[in-house]
């Protein structure tokens, strides 16, 4: 099943023409309405008239997450605030989030690409879909919600957590599809066993999982535990949210909805554009976005693109599962975490720079984060209640900044290994590769 054959199966030459047209319009729009981009283009001597075809995309400068932070909250918006109907945000360093805005048309477009994604997983209006992604500032819940409504499925907006209730509704309502992070899916599968729920009583048949890295082993584990077929969905809020790309039944990479999100692969060091098939950093130009169009946004995700036509009939380019990041960002329980965010919390609590280590692991299929903090003398009190108070303050500050809970472990000074005088900040014990 294909939701929109016109765009999803478009001849590649025609698609490139359409992309060129859309980039051209977008550059004109941002030049006129976003001072940041006008300045950036002028500095490089680029006029909107210089961009006419998709081949001209390479002339344009890149946009980074730092640019989004520097323009916090609304300076990259290309429309007046009165046209913005939705705001989402992700956690950011020193309390500053990355903010994204949507116009009415952006929400329509987002629903369209999620509808296409769900259709790839075989979802139709006859399905009952349990959306167990978090609802709120995170794009997962509402993104899947609107797309599923567009398909016409019955949506259960249960949001994340509350595992018992999830299982109860799954059984009582006869949910046929579940959408959540893969680690939560595995967790639900294990809870099913624990609660001794008879799987034959469930009608679940497919799952749409994303927002964090996962392996093929995890896929088969989830499929076995829940008795479903598991599909991979990819997205990031800067581009739109979930629904930037999605796996079809062939499960041979994720089709990027290129008519909206124009992908490139670059060498993260030289920024040179690489041909299809080569490993590099994924860059997107969401050319049809109205509220916040971005020029060549660097995702920092490392992957390869393949342009051969897929057996499913779609001509859209396919991206492989991301193999890593070109920066130090971690994805923990679907939440983006930079070590520098943890550092900023610790810095706020003491005068000097602390030594710390993030230990990420996966226990019972749920990501765990332990933050080890060296108890240097400025931190050290000889009373247990003071040290425990410190531990709780770190824990609650981390939770409120990052939106995830972490175990805080106080360790002796010098315990955290340093190489060349520089401390290693992260140990990721999850086996994802």
């Amino acid at each position, binding site marked *: 099943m294909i939701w929109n054959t016109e765009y999803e199966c478009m001849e590649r030459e025609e698609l490139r023409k359409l992309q060129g047209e859309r980039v051209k319009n977008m550059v004109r729009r941002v030049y006129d309405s976003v001072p940041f981009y006008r300045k950036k283009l002028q500095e490089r001597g680029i006029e909107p008239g210089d961009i006419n075809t998709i081949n001209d995309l390479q002339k344009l400068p890149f946009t980074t997450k730092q640019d989004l932070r520097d323009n916090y909250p609304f300076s990259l918006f290309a429309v007046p605030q009165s046209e913005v109907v939705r705001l989402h945000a992700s956690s950011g360093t020193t309390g500053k989030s990355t903010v994204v805005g949507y116009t009415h048309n952006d929400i329509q477009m987002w629903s369209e690409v999620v509808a296409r994604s769900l259709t790839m997983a075989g979802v139709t209006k006859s399905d009952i879909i349990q959306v167990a992604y978090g609802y709120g500032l995170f794009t997962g819940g509402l993104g899947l919600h609107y797309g599923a409504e567009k398909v016409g499925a019955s949506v259960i907006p249960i949001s994340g957590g509350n595992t018992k209730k999830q299982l109860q509704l799954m059984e009582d309502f006869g949910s046929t599809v579940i959408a959540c992070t893969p680690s939560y899916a595995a967790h639900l599968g294990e809870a099913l066993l624990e609660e001794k729920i008879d799987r034959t009583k469930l009608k679940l048949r497919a799952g749409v999982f994303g927002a964090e890295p996962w392996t093929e082993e995890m896929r088969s584990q989830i499929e076995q535990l829940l008795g479903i077929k598991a599909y991979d969905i990819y997205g990031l809020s800067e581009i739109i949210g979930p629904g930037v790309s999605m796996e079809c039944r062939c499960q041979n990479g994720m089709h990027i909805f290129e008519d909206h999100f124009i992908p490139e692969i670059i060498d993260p060091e030289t920024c040179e554009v690489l041909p299809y098939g080569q490993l590099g950093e994924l860059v997107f130009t969401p050319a049809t976005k109205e509220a916040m169009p971005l020029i060549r946004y660097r995702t920092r995700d490392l992957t390869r693109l393949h342009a051969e036509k897929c057996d499913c009939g779609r001509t859209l380019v396919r991206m492989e599962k991301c193999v890593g990041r070109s920066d130090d960002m971690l994805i923990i329980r679907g939440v983006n975490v930079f070590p520098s965010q943890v550092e900023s919390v610790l810095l706020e609590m003491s005068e000097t720079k602390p030594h710390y280590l993030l230990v990420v692991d996966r226990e019972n299929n749920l990501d765990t984060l332990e933050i080890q903090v060296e*108890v*240097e*003398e400025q*931190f*050290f*009190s*000889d*009373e*247990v209640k003071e*040290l*425990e108070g410190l531990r709780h303050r770190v824990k609650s500050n981390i939770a409120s900044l990052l939106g995830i809970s972490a175990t805080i*472990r*106080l*360790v*002796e*000074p*010098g*315990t955290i290994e340093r190489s060349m005088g520089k401390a290693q900040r992260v140990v990721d014990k999850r086996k994802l590769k």
Partner: protein
Amino acid sequence: MIIKQLSVFLENRTGRLTELTGILEENDINISAFSIADTADYGILRMIVGRPLEAAEVLRKQGFAVKVTDVVAMIVPHRPGGIHKALQIISDNNVAIDYMYAFASGECKATVVIRADSLEKLIEVLTEHKMELLQEGDVTQV
């Protein structure tokens, strides 16, 4: 009247305490009194030693987080009610005890190490009630 106590942060690791006592032995530092407050992950070792400032330096050089804290050491009779009388005086005078540890030395005396919210007031009320307090130089005799 104020005694210098060393507080050391220790992770719960086998052998860690032995390393510390080894360092003190090598440096010929005598431990007179000693207590550990423990949690699941770490402990705080508190001790009264001879030459506390030197001991703190030696331990810091070996990578320990050390704090020198002021405490009061009080001598009470080693018999039923001995410590009770002292505590009664302290609580009657509204001095809050943060922590304390005690040990008996010899047949007739026990020493109680106390950290309180106001050491000044603690010393004042104990002296007023003629309780015997250790002086700094007395430590090695404990």
